[in-house]
């Protein structure tokens, strides 16, 4: 093994704990906290997936009586929609890529012994965990979980008597999200401070792996967005419980005045989407970073246009705050404002295209190794393009009149925000599993998992575009009796069958994950022959990441196939490579 450069390191702020509680439960170690986030997200994704399965069953067999669960009433269907969306967006897509992998690998990749504030890091996980418990508790209170959708539009969400589930269940939903915001803010604080202040010697910002850039910019987005969601949540709680009228206009329920007046439902939408659109990038940016990393590693080529990739991440982050109005074209908006939001939205296509072409440029002429992480990274690019291409349709107010609130919208955002991000999580799992657990995952099972997921995803979501264009509205629990939609029922059935098969495919992943944890073949320190710092340390890494040492960085993160180098990769802390002229 090459002689890597290490220098003196600040000692780990805390010693390695010995007891079970301090080591595995209330741990200060960013690696354990990362795993805690990961397993929380894993639990959440199976809850969310189960809810979607119930929805799919109800859509094609609305009269079916399910074992243990009984009938699914229309309001229950709306509850499923709400909780599926909320759990997936907050506790999976925000939690796993950033809280899970970011926590585990950001400090190691920049050569730090831990996060800047380990106690805060621990608190951020347990706050998020509490948020999840409160969210799940909403299922079990009188009236059940809320039915106002993950976007919580007022006045439905702002009045306790607006429907079943809008009582205590809706309060718990808001409180859970508020708790989640606080946890996410604590996490973002750590990510930003750690990135700015704890990089190893020689690890300049422009030598950071693109994963670190993605986690860093995602943390900034979270910092700016979650405070606004928290403010909206506080106002909503006041409207619901203190009789204020921030979001509730003069409304009647069953002919009775509610006592509210003058509030603006649009105000909620503005505040919510000011958070909500950056949230899309909070979910997808870390996956973009992971994808960039993996395409370079498994193509044995430097990433195409590193600087352009960094500027594209920054550009996407910046523009992400300028486009929230495109969710509200149909809510009542001046056409001039809509035009501005439309232009800004389509402008995001520019940095997104830069990233996509750079990914393709990285693949071009590469000596590609089609290992399972690479398959999922390529799958990510495919889903990103497919899901992204329908964005400019929805970004145009005129087309949005037709497509808004149809199945076209779930098709778009599930592909680009949901499944693409999930593919990023899978890619990262297969890639970093050896470092995290010291064992390799089963490659055959991983490949089966990939093809089930990749084909299954397209089978589920591509037909939804056609449903949407044909005018099938989303959110309705029962459309089987609607005459003009009758011919679309076979397509709905196809989607449900595809969902069954795709979900079954996820069991392969689950079995592989836990089986490999205990029985997988032992992993070497650098099984993928990668260059970044996590592969310079032991597998799994010691408590302080580098065993009392800290790397000195001389090279960029993607030095593959360097002419004149003894191997086809040069690690970041190898002696500096001189360009061959």
């Amino acid at each position, binding site marked *: 093994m090459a002689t890597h450069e290490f220098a003196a390191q600040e000692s780990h702020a805390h010693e390695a704990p010995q007891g079970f509680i301090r080591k595995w439960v209330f741990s200060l170690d960013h690696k354990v906290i990362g795993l805690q986030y990961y397993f929380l997200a894993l639990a959440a994704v199976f809850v969310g997936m189960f809810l979607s399965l119930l929805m799919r069953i109800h859509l094609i067999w609305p009269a079916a009586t399910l074992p243990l669960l009984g009938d699914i009433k229309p309001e229950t269907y709306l509850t499923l929609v709400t909780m599926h969306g909320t759990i997936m967006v907050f506790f999976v897509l925000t939690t796993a890529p950033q809280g899970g992998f970011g926590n585990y690998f950001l400090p190691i990749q920049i050569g730090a012994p831990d996060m*800047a504030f380990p106690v805060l890091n621990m608190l951020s996980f347990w706050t998020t965990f509490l948020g999840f418990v409160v969210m799940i508790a909403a299922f079990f209170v009188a009236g059940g979980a809320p039915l106002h959708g993950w976007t919580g539009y007022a006045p439905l969400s702002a009045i306790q008597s607006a429907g079943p589930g809008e009582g205590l269940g809706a309060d718990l939903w808001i409180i859970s999200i508020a708790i989640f915001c606080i946890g996410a803010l604590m996490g973002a604080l750590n990510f930003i401070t750690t990135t700015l202040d704890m990089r190893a010697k020689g690890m300049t910002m422009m030598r950071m792996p693109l994963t670190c850039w993605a986690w860093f910019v995602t943390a900034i987005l979270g910092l700016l967005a979650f405070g606004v969601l928290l403010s909206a949540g506080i106002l909503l709680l*006041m409207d619901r419980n203190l009789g*204020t009228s921030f979001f509730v206009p003069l409304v009647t329920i069953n002919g009775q005045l509610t006592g509210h007046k003058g509030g603006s439902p649009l105000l909620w939408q503005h*505040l919510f989407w000011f958070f909500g659109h950056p949230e899309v990038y909070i979910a997808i940016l870390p996956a973009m970073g992971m994808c960039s990393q993996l395409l370079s590693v498994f193509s044995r080529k430097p990433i195409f246009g590193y600087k352009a990739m960094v500027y594209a991440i920054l550009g996407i982050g910046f523009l992400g705050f300028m486009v929230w109005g495109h969710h509200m074209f149909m809510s009542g908006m001046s056409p001039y404002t809509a035009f501005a939001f439309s232009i800004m939205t389509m402008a995001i296509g520019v940095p997104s295209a830069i990233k996509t072409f750079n990914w393709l440029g990285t693949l071009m002429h590469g000596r590609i190794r089609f290992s399972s992480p690479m398959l999922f990274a390529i799958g990510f690019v495919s889903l990103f393009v497919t899901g992204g291409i329908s964005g400019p349709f929805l970004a145009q107010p005129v087309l949005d009149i037709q497509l808004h609130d149809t199945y076209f919208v779930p098709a778009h955002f599930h592909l680009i925000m949901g499944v693409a991000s999930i593919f990023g999580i899978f890619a990262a799992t297969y890639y970093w599993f050896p470092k995290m657990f010291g064992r390799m995952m089963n490659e055959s099972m991983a490949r089966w998992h990939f093809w089930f997921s990749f084909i299954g995803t397209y089978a589920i979501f591509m037909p939804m575009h056609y449903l949407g264009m044909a005018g099938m509205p989303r959110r309705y629990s029962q459309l089987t009796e609607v005459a003009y939609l009758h011919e679309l029922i076979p397509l709905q059935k196809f989607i449900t069958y595809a969902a069954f098969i795709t979900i079954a495919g996820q069991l392969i992943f689950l079995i592989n994950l836990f089986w490999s944890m*205990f029985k997988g073949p032992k992993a070497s320190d650098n099984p993928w022959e990668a260059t970044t710092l996590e592969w310079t340390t032991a597998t799994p890494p010691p408590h302080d990441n580098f065993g009392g040492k800290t790397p000195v960085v001389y090279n960029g993160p993607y030095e593959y196939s360097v002419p004149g180098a003894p191997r086809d990769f040069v690690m970041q802390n190898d002696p500096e490579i001189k360009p061959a002229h």
Partner: protein
Amino acid sequence: MTFMASLSTTATVADARISGGEDTRMAAPDYGTRLRRARLGLLVALTPVLMLFVSFSSAYVVRQGLPTLDPRTNTLVRDWIPVTLPKLLLINTGVLILSSLFMELARRQIKGQVVLASAKAAPGVSSGDQIRIPWLLMTFLLGLTFLFGQWTAWRQLAASGFYVATTPSSSFVYLLTGTHAIHLMGGVLALFVAGFAALLRRSVATRSIVVDVTAWYWHFMAALWIYILCLLEFAS
């Protein structure tokens, strides 16, 4: 616990697989590094607080301009009744500004102690006895006075008929003052921790960092309060 052993996510520190370099474990980060990191952390932490109030402010401006339907006349009317703010808020403002001044003096005092502590380590240097004014305690007490003053102002508002849901403007008065008060309580708690750390004989460097960060937070809270007061008074 064997299954946990096989699921270890950490190697031993002396693991031979960690390649190259020399074992150069050193002391904890120095004072300057810790202070810089804490200040950076605070700066980052203040961003969402700022966003929270920016969001409330935008809601304030939007809600103020909205008409509502009067069901009796079926016409659009304004329901924004400006609240006359209690004069006590001006006194509270003075208390907070004074506390901010004291906080700054406390910050400089403990910073001086850090310098003195490092100088004392040099042979032949003596600090001598000096009387220290308890700026930190005084700030703490003024912070509590401010919070009590805000509570009293709330009671005065309620006594004059303005409750949380009476009119949108009163909703915002309670919202903004209440959210600010909760944030200031965080500062009061930090002061308590700093004082408690002194009782526990924690190092002056650690206490200095707590006080330094709390001081910047406190100044931010004072500036934020002045902004809130201006918003409520002049933007009605």
